[in-house]
């Protein structure tokens, strides 16, 4: 860590880069934003925006359950609950075909409310508002290692499963006719999203994580012609807005996650102008 810090001191002789919490946050952003940018391409292609939102909301129930059964680390129950919900939604979607949005809406609202009800018992909800907007500046070096592991996980997943998932997103019947196991792929992709959303929530927040999973690809698809450029733009937009958002939030004293979302929102509107 010390070596990385001193390299950063050398490369970034700015006021905001003096503090180690800013260095940590910057490191996290350098790794997290490309991860989310990559993921967002298929989330948008597969029209899973609402799905990832629901997973984010489920985090509150996950925390609540963890506290009820006395877990020290609520992340365990958060991940388990999110995985359970993700797989359940995919299986129901495959059984019933059309009304996925309604199904997700039902689960999403129940999860959110259940979490709020349990956590607000006794008037203590304010303790958990941290999870709503997240705090990127509180990230620790240990957590950065976690972020790196997630990044590698996503890359490996993308290397192995991307092609098949792309065919599924274009036409599930076509995919099946080419011997692709659609249900299996959808379940593991949903699980991957669940894991990443839940881990990111601690730093980025329930209300903001979904923006970072949708906006990069939403902007990128306006100006991309193929899968490769789609990925490149999505990653660049996510990354650049992450860095700009972090620095801006430092100088104007705002929540980092939300500031990043606003920057990428601006990029989205600019991309609309260049839409081909």
């Amino acid at each position, binding site marked *: 860590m010390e070596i990385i810090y001193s390299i950063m001191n050398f490369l970034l002789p700015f006021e905001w880069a003096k503090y180690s919490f800013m260095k940590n946050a910057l490191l996290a952003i350098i790794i997290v934003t490309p991860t989310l940018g990559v993921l967002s391409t298929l989330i948008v292609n597969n029209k899973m925006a609402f799905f990832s939102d629901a997973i984010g909301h489920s985090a509150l129930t996950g925390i609540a359950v963890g506290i009820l059964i006395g877990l020290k680390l609520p992340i365990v129950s958060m991940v388990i609950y999110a995985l359970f919900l993700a797989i359940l939604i995919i299986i129901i979607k495959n059984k019933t075909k059309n009304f996925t949005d309604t199904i997700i809406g039902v689960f999403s609202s129940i999860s959110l409310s259940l979490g709020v009800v349990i956590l607000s018992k006794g008037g203590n909800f304010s303790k958990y508002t941290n999870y709503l907007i997240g705090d990127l500046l509180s990230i620790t070096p240990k957590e950065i290692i976690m972020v790196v592991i997630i990044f590698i996980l996503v890359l490996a997943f993308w290397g192995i499963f991307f092609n098949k998932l*792309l065919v599924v997103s274009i*036409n599930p019947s*076509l995919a*099946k*006719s080419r011997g692709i196991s659609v249900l299996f792929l959808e379940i593991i992709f949903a699980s991957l999203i669940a894991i990443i959303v839940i881990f990111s929530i601690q730093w980025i927040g329930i209300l903001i994580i979904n923006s970072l999973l949708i906006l990069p690809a939403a902007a990128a698809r306006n100006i991309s*012609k*193929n*899968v490769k450029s789609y*990925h490149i733009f999505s990653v660049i937009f996510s990354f650049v807005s992450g860095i700009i958002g972090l620095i801006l939030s430092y100088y104007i004293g705002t929540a980092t996650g939300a500031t990043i979302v606003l920057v990428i929102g601006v990029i989205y509107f600019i991309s609309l102008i260049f839409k081909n």
Partner: protein
Amino acid sequence: MKCERNRTPKTSCGLCCTKIVDFNVVYGKNHILKDINLHLHCGNLTAIIGPNGAGKTTLLKAILGQVRHTGQLKFVNPEDNNAANPTIGYVPQKLNFDAGTPVSVMDLFSSSLTNFPVWLRHKKKSRETAIESLTKVKAEHLINCKLGDLSGGELQRVLLALALNPIPDILLLDEPVSGIDERGLTLFYKLVSDLRLNYDLTIVLISHDLELVAKYANRIVLLNKEIKAYGNAIEVYNTEEFKEIFGEVWAKALS
């Protein structure tokens, strides 16, 4: 003549045969398909026609094994008898992406044919294969186009090229109800007809164009939950069942 699986042009052998035996599909109380028995020979272009809701797409999906059904699909090949799993090529009726999706024709080919991640790059070999297949359907100029920018007819030809990779034993084509102009449609039928003659494929085509069907298909199945008529165009278009659904005009036009 042997029904070789090499990919050189040859005349039809008619010996490979796909037998659909007693297909039944039931959704709840609805009997979607009833007692379907069909023999599909290679080198034949079998068109399935019928009114909306006749179960045409369901039949293709049942052959693909994507719809729960009773009955058997048997594939007989004179070369080896245990060809239990024929390669099936499938051209779906429509794709479920919106026009803005940044996926090029090349991306579609690479992702379907290889495991090498298309977001990194396309292998040279995949590009060559794609160009070769697209040339067969006169669509090689579309290779770098976005799927959403293609016309209905172009997209259909691209999907046909994809379905020919690898060359299937059975080719199932689900024609879109609308969205393809007259010229595109004629070109498509010509291509499919050429494939039948050159590659000795068993082709099943769901069609909505009775005129083109009469011209290019050599077997026609009139389907309305069950098989109402089977034969060549003149035979089928003259049956009472056909006239009841499509009117008298067609029989007159043919004779």
